[in-house]
């Protein structure tokens, strides 16, 4: 594990050197004028930190978990107040020559606190409402980081819900979140009006999706009610079919109202039938569907009012609604070009033209993967992805072999955070995720993030080393 860590960090360091390399003057990789020189310093600091962490008693981490959490929350608040504005965010603290991003360190602190909370006796999300307090452990730093205007880092904490899922959180919540994102995207993406009334194609599709959701959920929950399923299917298809006929031959009206109508009828029918037959789970179903419809009609409002204009822009570019290779889409477009031009074997180390000639912005930080894609090609990029996958699966297996719930939960926190970073960062660079500025672990230049990831990982390695100890 430590070897894997060293490989990733070293490769990252090489890549940072390549990304900052200049054709005209080839400076040494250690040159402090280059980011690679500075990164070397951070690597040294991280190594020292790793050794220190491995030397500490594993029980100590459990003890300080809450203290660290509270301290880091205070630090985050402190940062909001004193931090200077750097590129629109107030997340940097300057201590002498160093600049630190406390949000990076909040990750391990939050993970420790979450692990500590979940590992208390009798934690069970299914039976104890009080245990939903775990949500707050996650959401408080999120709030603070949003206040620093660091959307990307704040989103990372939602990865910790994966941990809760492992510890018994019902998958319906993840499903609901996924559905919400889908509804949001569909209704924004297809906002042009194709029918004769004010309702957009997106809304129409989203309503259809909700119908499908309703049917499948009901079918899953009540496998024996074949008759009811048929009635529901009829309730949805017949009005739509009639309405289409009507639209085609007689007069034209908004099909969305038909879908809404059949949804309403279905819900009434389900409620009525369940009261008669005493079916289970129906309340949650009806409530969810109503919420989904409400959410659908709220998306426009959310999009227009809650998101910042530049975020609206990015969203639209990402969804392919507007083509804008010069502004919002520039980064992603250039990233795709540089990766795409790498071919199978790549152009060779330090030979990439796109990254060397600075066509890709932020190429030493968030877009560092471009350099790998261009210089090492498909082979190198795939190798890196495989390394990450191996790294994460190994972490999951390590977490699973823990005897203590604290260690296991903390292990999953580490996995979730790494997974989210890799998922979003690579997805963004490959142009299949929206542009959210978070670093690629061990690769992106940045002392805080390297140190943060190192601490996160090595605390777990220390815990793992002590997994056989009996007492907690």
């Amino acid at each position: 594990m430590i070897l894997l860590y060293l490989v990733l960090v070293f490769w990252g360091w090489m890549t940072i050197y390549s990304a900052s390399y200049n054709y005209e003057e080839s400076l040494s990789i250690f040159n402090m004028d280059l980011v690679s020189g500075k990164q070397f310093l951070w690597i040294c600091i991280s190594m020292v930190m790793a050794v220190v962490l491995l030397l500490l008693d594993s029980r100590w981490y459990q003890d300080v978990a809450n203290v660290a959490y509270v301290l880091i929350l205070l630090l985050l608040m402190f940062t909001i107040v004193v931090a200077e504005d750097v590129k629109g965010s107030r997340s940097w603290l300057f201590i002498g020559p160093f600049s630190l991003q406390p949000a990076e360190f909040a990750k391990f602190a939050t993970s420790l606190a979450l692990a500590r909370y979940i590992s208390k006796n009798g934690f069970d999300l299914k039976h104890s409402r009080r245990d939903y307090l775990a949500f707050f452990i996650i959401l408080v730093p999120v709030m603070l980081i949003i206040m620093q205007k660091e959307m990307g880092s704040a989103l990372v904490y939602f990865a910790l819900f994966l941990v809760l899922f492992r510890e018994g959180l019902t998958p319906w919540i993840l499903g609901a979140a996924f559905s919400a994102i889908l509804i949001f995207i569909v209704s924004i993406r297809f906002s042009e009006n194709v029918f004769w009334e004010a309702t957009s194609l997106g809304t129409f599709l989203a309503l259809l999706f909700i119908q499908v959701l309703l049917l499948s959920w009901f079918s899953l929950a009540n496998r024996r009610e074949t008759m009811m399923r048929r009635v529901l299917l009829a309730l949805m298809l017949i009005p739509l079919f009639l309405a289409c006929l009507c639209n085609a031959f007689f007069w034209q009206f908004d099909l969305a109202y038909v879908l809404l109508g059949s949804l309403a009828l279905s819900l009434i029918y389900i409620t009525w039938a369940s009261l008669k037959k005493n079916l289970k789970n129906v309340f949650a179903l009806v409530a969810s569907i109503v919420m989904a419809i409400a959410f659908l009609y709220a998306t426009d409002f959310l999009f227009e009012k809650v998101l910042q204009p530049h975020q609206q822009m990015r969203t639209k570019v990402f969804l392919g609604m507007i083509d804008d290779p010069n502004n919002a889409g520039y980064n992603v477009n250039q990233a795709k070009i540089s990766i795409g031009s790498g071919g199978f074997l790549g152009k060779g180390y330090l030979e990439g033209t796109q990254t060397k000639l600075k066509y890709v912005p932020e190429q030493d930080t968030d877009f560092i993967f471009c350099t790998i894609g261009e210089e090492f090609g498909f082979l190198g990029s795939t190798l890196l992805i495989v390394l990450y996958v191996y790294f994460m699966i190994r972490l999951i297996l390590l977490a699973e072999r823990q005897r203590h719930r604290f260690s296991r939960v903390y292990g999953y926190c580490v996995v979730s955070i790494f997974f989210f970073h890799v998922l979003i960062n690579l997805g963004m660079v490959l142009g299949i995720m929206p542009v959210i500025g978070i670093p690629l672990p061990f690769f992106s230049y940045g002392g805080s993030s390297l140190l943060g990831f190192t601490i996160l990982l090595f605390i777990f390695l220390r815990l793992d080393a002590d997994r056989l100890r009996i007492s907690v």
Partner: protein
Amino acid sequence: MSKDYSSRSTVIIAMVVVVALAYIVRLAHLQLFSDEYERSADRNAQHVKTIYPERGILYDRNGEVMVYNSVYYDLMVTTREMKNLDTLSFCRHLGINVEDFDKRMKEIRNRRINPGYSSYTPQVFMPQLSMEACAPLQEHLFNYPGFSLQKRSLRSYSRPVAAHALGYVGEVNRRDLENDAYYAVGDYSGRSGIERMYEEKLRGEKGKEFYLRDVHGRIKGRFANGNKDVPPVPGKDLTLSLDADLQAYAESLMQNKRGAVVAIEPSSGEILCYVSAPTYDPSLLVGNGSSEHYRALSDSPYKVFLNRPIQSFYPPGSTFKTLQALVLLQEGIITPQTKYACHQGYSFAGMKLGCHSHESPMALAPSIATSCNAYFAAAYRAMVDDEKYGSSQASMQVWRNHVSSFGYGEKLGVDIAYEQSGFIPDENFYDKLYGKRGWKGATIISNSIGQGEILATPMQIANLCAIIANRGWYYTPHMVKAIEGESLDPRFTTPHRVSVDSVHFQPIVDGMRAAVTESFGTSRGVAVPGIEVCGKTGTAQNAGVDHSIFMCFAPKENPQIALLVFIENGGFGATWAVPMASLLLEQYLKGDIAPNRKWMETRLLNANLMEVEPEQK
């Protein structure tokens, strides 16, 4: 005890693997199955600099350089790359003022004036600066991003002669850009003459140098260490068949006259001399001011740009009698001994085709020598109306086929751009004009003496002379004798046989010789001491003063030159055209003019026929 959810770890592992697979598929899509990104990357990072090859050099037949290249610089601007321009100091380096600068920039950006405009590609800001003119700018060029100097070579001429033959080089137009992918906006290509006909030989192949360009448009070095660079291939040198001395001498004799002089080496079809008068200094159409010069020349009332040897056409007059005689002999209408009476002309159907007074009747050779109209009118009429053909239409068709085999009525295919074909009427033409039964020999009698509907270019007449000199065959006249490292187009090295047998040429040659030697001959003035010259005068009837035509070849046996002199409004041939031909023959065959003939030269040099015949109608 809470439920064990450890099976969910499998779900999480599955998520990780699925995401990883999706990303690898995406990577494969970007990197393996689409070269669109590679091309975009090249567009991003490669700056291609075009290296222009040296255009081929033109030599005359004796190896004297006629056209070569000198180096100039085009100042180019890529408007998108212009940044923080200090207009004032920029203009100071160039020696222009700010208003000029603004005006020029506006012109560049105006797509109506500059249809190939793009803000990404270099546009010509100021063309053709000499090395001295751009030296002060060159040192400071790095201060002006977006501006660059493009080395160009421009045509230079060692003597101001042969403008119409050589043609000129100019910027390509939109049609060239569409038709030939080789050209880019602002390139130069041959616009006329040899420069146009041999453009693909002369231009060579452009070279390319690939540079790396960063996101700010700065050049950061060679792409792939210059391994992808393509060196330019210089254009091929051409050796022209022109004799520069003869050419210069002919042009000087033609000064202040309008007309054409064409000389052909009969044994090779090579054009020795090619004058279109009035002419101009070809260097006027090169470099700065060329467009003003161009406008001035094309506005001239004397039609300077009319390439008279191949583009003007007139009735060939009496020179055509030689061809008539050959056709009549071949068809057996006459023999060399056939005589026709001439009573100061030929009377037919109550009309009379006049002739001057001379001995009568006469055989063929003396009739050519004295240019008897009656002889050819009677013989031509006899042919058209001869019953062996069955109809006027049929005999006309036979006649026309013979005439066409001499290259009349169609383009000869010379290697100078924009040749015209002249005109030889056929039976359909007269059917349309007079009705199917409405014409016979008498109706079209003017054709017999080269008037009427017959039209020929000076080149065609010169070629006729070469055919007679060769006794029945010719090479397509051409101006390029040799191409560096290549053989000539086979159409210039394949002899054409005319449809008249060689035996029939002797009386014609004798007649043309008699025209020079006999007292009744029309061409006595062409005689050059010690050289057997054969000649035939002609007069193209004109609304004003007639055009004079004279064709001749020398020596009679193994002819070395066939010459045509055509002078617009020159009147009777003997006045100007014949003595001029005499001087040119002497110059070419002897190398200079005998002192006792200098008076002829002076007389011709001083003659001004420019203003004769101001539109008489």
